């Protein structure tokens, strides 16, 4: 290529920070996330909880389903750290087991809803016009469908299966995500850099995937962290109706519901699962906030 034409004056380049070599948006985001103390704390707390739920039941001397009627409804003690329920089952083991279900439902359903919602919303908004109108009316119709009826229909059609639960919840949660993403993309679509990308001759798919979607990560991540608890509660509701996890299996949502009924007599049956639930939500919120900031390259102060 030709020789340099008129070098940029020095005044223009003074002290530009952060010119280090970097690999990707994600690696940058990770580096920025590590600087956010609350996010790291959230991450650590959450990791400990998740590990405990995954690994804890193996270490526990008790089974989640073994009853010990002689030892029923005991408050927390050295033998049973979280106490026992009315049937004499170890509450700690049950909390950990329930955590598996809750976390799995929370994350898988959220992931499903994010994947569908983001792609659907972005496509709809980017396509615009009639396609957009049609796609969004479809969302409206699905919104209007009563959730429980939908789940019952699924259960009737495919039988009881915990995987169906993920599917059913994910299939409902993506609707809001799609709407949020659509709104964001509608405004992004008219931004100059998207038009510039069109001018470079990029295909619509490439523009949506590379230029539009990264720009909606912020709101999406924050909404996703809000979706996780919502999904866990939905699962509790379904389980309460007998459509979710079946006894003797349990989940945090179910335990909280049961615990709340016996709150006055056995408060520990409410407190522990509720505490786990809240701590999870808190840490997720901090992680979400941190991620939102970390994913925005403009927030890099280094």
């Amino acid at each position, binding site marked *: 290529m030709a020789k340099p*034409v008129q070098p940029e004056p020095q005044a223009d380049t003074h002290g530009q920070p952060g010119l280090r070599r970097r690999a990707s948006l994600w690696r940058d985001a990770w580096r920025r996330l590590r600087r956010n103390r609350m996010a790291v704390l959230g991450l650590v707390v959450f990791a400990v909880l998740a590990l405990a739920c995954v690994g804890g039941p193996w270490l526990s001397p008790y089974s989640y389903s073994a009853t010990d009627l002689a030892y029923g409804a005991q408050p927390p003690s050295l033998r049973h750290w979280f106490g026992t329920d009315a049937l004499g089952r170890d509450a700690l083991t049950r909390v950990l087991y329930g955590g598996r279900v809750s976390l799995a439902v929370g994350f898988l359903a959220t992931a499903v809803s994010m994947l569908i919602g983001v792609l659907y919303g972005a496509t709809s908004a980017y396509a615009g016009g009639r396609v957009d109108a049609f796609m969004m009316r479809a969302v409206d119709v699905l919104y209007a469908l009563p959730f429980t009826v939908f789940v019952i229909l699924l259960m009737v059609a495919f039988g009881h299966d915990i995987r169906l639960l993920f599917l059913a919840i994910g299939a409902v949660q993506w609707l809001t995500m799609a709407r949020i993403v659509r709104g964001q993309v509608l405004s992004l679509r008219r931004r100059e850099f998207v038009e510039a990308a069109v001018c470079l001759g990029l295909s619509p798919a490439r523009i949506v995937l590379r230029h539009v979607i990264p720009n909606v990560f912020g709101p999406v991540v924050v909404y996703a962290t809000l979706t996780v608890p919502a999904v866990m509660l939905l699962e509790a509701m379904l389980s309460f109706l007998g459509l979710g996890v079946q006894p003797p299996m349990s989940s945090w949502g179910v335990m909280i519901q049961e615990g709340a009924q016996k709150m006055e007599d056995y408060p520990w049956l409410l407190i522990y699962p509720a505490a786990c639930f809240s701590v999870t939500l808190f840490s997720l919120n901090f992680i979400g906030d941190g991620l939102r900031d970390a994913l925005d390259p403009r927030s890099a102060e280094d």
Partner: protein
Amino acid sequence: MPLLEVQDLTVRFHTRDGIVRAVEKVSFHLEPGETLGLVGESGSGKSVTCLSLLGLVPCPPGRVEQGRALFDGLDLLSCGERRLRGIRGRRIGMVFQDPMTALNPYLRIGTQLSEPLTCHGASRRREAWARAAAALTEVGIQDAERRLQCYPHQLSGGMRQRVVIAMALIAQPDVIIADEPTTALDVTVQAQILDLIRALQKARRTAMVLVTHNLGVVAGACDRVAVMYAGRVVETGSVTDVFRQGLHPYTQALCRALPRPGARGTDLYSIPGQPPRLTEACPGCPFAPRCPAATACCQEPVTLAEARTGHWTACVRTQRGEL
């Protein structure tokens, strides 16, 4: 044979308040290697003209109602999205007005810069990245390798505009459309950027359509100029002809309205009245209501006609030799 020939381009926006006639029967042509200035005030249809060439007029509400834009024998207005995509970036590049918004804040400079190369399948990533570095050097950015790793917000406005220019040029197009490339920059940087565009353009014999409302920019950077008013070309010709001996009363008024050194203390001339509302059909000369030389004949339909060699005007009275 002209590289780009636009004939009777008409673009309308169908809005709730009525039909906005943004561009009415605009015709111009562009020779290889030449620079055509499109001047006019805000709302005169300069940008819409450019956008419609690349199929970027938002539809709805906009619609190209009529006209042809022949580029290398292909009509850009009717060739369809797929073929247009092959032309965008590779054959016709576009420089946007505001470098602050024309770059994606989430992508590195290098990624954005190499995109026109990788997406047309012209080259592989590493090769594209190398060419991106070369392109940055070419637009006068030092330390290109390192700059490729930057995000747009880490660069200054002038540098970003250099990146935008490099992006438009990287696939070596035959035509660049520059939509007010210097408006968002401060004056000293403006001059640098204009010089840069001119130099690159000369080196490669790239033709350019330069949209601006700055007559000084046109005088300094263009070979020919088309003056637009209310969605129409009212005068076109070489820069010297149009500015020295403007034929259309609007062009003359525009030149009078320029501030002049040495004219201190006197009021700046301004054209009385307002530009017409584009929602109302205007069969005659759109400038007639504000024109000091207007007569009854200005209400009749008028087309661009060659008054002198290579110098066209859409003023009936000039065409008749009355002015």
